[in-house]
């Protein structure tokens, strides 16, 4: 109940400032909206995890998206989606996840201004294992284009509220992005991110292992390069490589030392790629894959006994997903999704894997 009240209170605050804006815009401006997209889906799904347990569930999902043109060069879009999963084998549990967002675009001769506000959350947790959370997020930015080069600067942030853990955090950051489009067949991108994250319920320990009232603060920096484009008329692809650092002042209690400093600081390197193919309006296929290496700077991997091993923690994650669908009439879609991911680490408790399969029907109204 406490969780529900906390979430609803935050939702009400969010609605209290977004709803009037939407209503004022709707009343004052000559809206010309596209036909809204409304989708309802029902799926059967199965999840296998590293501990050998399997779970079968049914999912019901709904999605509404609607873009309205406020003027010739200004638009407002609304997006809402919900997923409900009910397990059907051992225990009959209900999981949920919801997303709500509004974005605005204003094109001026000097460039494009964009802003977005959203709210995502789950009251009971998600089937994939995420505990209940509420996450308002926001983004505002500017994008300019000259010839084949597009540059943008974005400020974005979120507040992650997780009532069942002490991992609530506020993130704020800036992204500078450059994108070159030498032709329609190829594009290159470069993105630099700098951000700060405050963990509002995570407090540092003093040298003796006593908890202080000082919050954990992390600084994030990363550099991403990407490429993508079209192959012929029916294929598109993208790849990206990213490297960065999370520099945290967090520490943790360990044995035999009372406190291990820099326990959450690490370097990371990641690559991912996607390929999509739609040879006919009835068919679509998407494949994606990723790999990521986290190299902890000061944190030692723990042994099975829970003591420091003297070796820095190393974590490698990789995964792949496939999604395909077929429609006879642009309204009814048969959907199939498969994904698998695995995490390897030199610490026993940090390694896991899971596989998810989902098949179902979506109806677009």
């Amino acid at each position: 109940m406490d969780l529900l009240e906390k979430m609803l209170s935050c939702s009400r605050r969010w609605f209290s400032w977004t709803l009037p804006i939407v209503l004022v815009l709707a009343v004052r401006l000559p809206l010309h909206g596209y036909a809204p997209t409304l989708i309802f889906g029902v799926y059967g799904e199965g999840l296998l995890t590293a501990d050998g347990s399997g779970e079968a569930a049914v999912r019901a999902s709904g999605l509404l998206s609607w873009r309205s043109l406020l003027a010739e060069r200004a638009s407002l879009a609304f997006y809402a989606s919900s997923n409900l999963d009910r397990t059907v084998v051992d225990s009959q549990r209900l999981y949920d996840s919801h997303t709500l967002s509004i974005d605005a675009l204003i094109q001026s001769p000097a460039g494009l201004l964009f802003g977005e506000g959203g709210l995502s959350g789950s009251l009971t947790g998600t089937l994939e294992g995420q505990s209940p959370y509420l996450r308002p997020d926001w983004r505002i930015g500017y994008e300019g284009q000259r010839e084949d080069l597009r540059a943008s600067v974005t400020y974005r942030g979120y507040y992650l509220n997780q009532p069942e853990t002490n991992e609530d955090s506020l993130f704020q950051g800036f992204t500078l992005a450059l994108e070159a489009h030498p032709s329609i067949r190829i594009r290159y991108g470069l993105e630099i991110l700098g951000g700060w994250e405050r963990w509002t319920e995570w407090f540092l320990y003093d040298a003796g292992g006593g908890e202080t009232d000082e919050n954990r603060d992390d600084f994030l920096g990363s550099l991403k390069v990407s490429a993508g484009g079209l192959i012929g008329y029916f294929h598109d692809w993208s790849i990206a490589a990213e490297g960065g650092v999370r520099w945290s002042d967090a520490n943790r209690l360990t044995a035999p030392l009372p406190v291990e400093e820099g326990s959450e600081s690490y370097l990371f390197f990641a690559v991912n790629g996607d390929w999509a193919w739609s040879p006919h309006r009835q068919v679509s296929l998407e494949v994606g894959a990723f790999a990521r290496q986290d190299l902890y700077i000061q944190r030692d991997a723990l042994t099975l006994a829970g003591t420091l091993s003297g070796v820095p923690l190393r974590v490698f994650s990789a995964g792949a997903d496939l999604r395909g669908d077929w429609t006879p009439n642009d309204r009814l879609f048969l959907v199939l999704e498969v994904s698998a991911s695995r995490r390897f680490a030199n610490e026993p408790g940090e390694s896991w894997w899971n596989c998810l399969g989902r098949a179902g029907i979506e109806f677009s109204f």
Partner: protein
Amino acid sequence: MIRLFAAGGRRFPQFSFIGCLIVFSLFAAIPVSGQDVESAITKTLEKSRYSERQKASIISFFTETDRADLPAELLVPKLEEGIAKRIPAQRVLDALKREREGLLKARALILRVEGGEQVLADRASWARTANLLAGGISETEIERLILLCRSRVGDFRPATYLYAALKEWGLGQEPSFSLIGALLRSSISADSFMGVMDLLATGRRRRIAPEELVRRIEEHLKQVKRIEELEKWIY
């Protein structure tokens, strides 16, 4: 390499003196559209293992083609392909005749359309029209494409490639022509017309019907300079 030849390595077949004389006399009879074409045919035939009689038949074919005021240079790649794949001369000649028939039909079709002379003046567009006919695109569809491209004749080929892709993807004739017309009226470069297919595929993944998306693209085309800009406005 030199050692191999000196050791009696395999040589390319040489034209005999009589063969050269026949080829020369046949070409002398052709008011050849260009020395380059004549040279290309000669060089291509030199690479072949066809008999002198077969070579003479092929040259005679090109003479007739030229007399019919058809662009012989458009048929040379077919000859080159046939020889490279070591296809028998008669089969190559049959294929060349079919290609020539296609060019003749394409010319008649293009000239039937108002403003078609400009399309015909561009040899590549002429060849493209013949390809479209061979590919099963109807004469009515091609006529409509020519009409749409009258103001941007140079973009006839990219427009037809997009049309063929849209047709293969399953978009109906009317939305396809409407979309291509809007693209040709916009300031979007023809090199990026193919980007439309990516927009449609992405829209489909978001469950937006292609016909609805075509309407949105057309509505926003006049406000953008590049096709990539559309993705922010149409979904």
